[in-house]
């Protein structure tokens, strides 16, 4: 599998991650059901407000799913940032991963690589992590 993502979304997610430091930033990219197209960026509030954890607020999560049903969309990408560690799924990322169809996109803004950032994408199904290629589309 490959994740195709626009440069514009990469820039917006990066800006969000820096804006929410020291905490993790999170969100989703939605797209039409069954198309695997990351077409609508939707930053989410990190209810955990933590540098080492993120969680969509239960109310926000329900509203998000209700919207998907109404609009014929699905969660194509679930993203979050790691402010101090590499862009690789943590043990809790793996334990919580509940969307077998989603690309789990991680962004690291750790100081060691600044001003560069690191984007990596994974499928996480039943505890098994598979890295996939990230193709950034110029916008």
């Amino acid at each position, binding site marked *: 599998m490959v994740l195709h993502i626009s440069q514009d979304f990469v820039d917006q997610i990066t800006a969000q991650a820096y804006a929410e430091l020291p905490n993790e930033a*999170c969100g*989703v990219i939605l797209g039409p059901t069954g198309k695997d197209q990351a077409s609508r960026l939707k930053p*989410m509030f990190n209810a*955990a407000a933590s540098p*080492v*954890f*993120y*969680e*969509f607020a*239960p*109310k926000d*999560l*329900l509203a998000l*799913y209700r919207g998907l049903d109404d609009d014929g969309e699905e969660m194509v990408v*679930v993203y*979050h940032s790691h402010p101090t560690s590499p862009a690789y*799924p*943590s*043990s*809790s*990322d*793996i*334990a*919580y*991963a*509940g*969307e*077998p*169809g989603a690309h789990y996109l991680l962004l690291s803004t750790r100081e060691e690589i600044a001003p560069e950032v690191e984007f990596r994408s994974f499928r996480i199904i039943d505890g098994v992590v598979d890295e996939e290629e990230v193709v950034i589309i110029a916008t």
Partner: protein
Amino acid sequence: MGLLDGANAGTKEGIKVPNNEVNIEVRIPTILRPYTKDQKLVSAKGSTLSEVIADLDLNYRGLGDRLLENGELRKFINVYINDEDVRFTGGLDSPTKGADSITILPAVAGG
């Protein structure tokens, strides 16, 4: 006492449909659809969330274990009765009635 019991039983017969006989709509997330033969929407019976989950597990074997751990709701799972997160309405003891809609969603969270 015997007469009273009889009277009560008679009254019960007269009640149209007890809550636990009414179908409650349950939305199943993608990750749990292997248990429901890929159905997104199923129905269940019960007057509490706990009874609804027990009923689901009768019809969709194994689903109960994916929702519960040591008799509690798993922390990776969010359950809503209509618009309410059940963590704030009594958890497994939350009352359910006909025409309620239950939504099960995997939490989106991690480290």
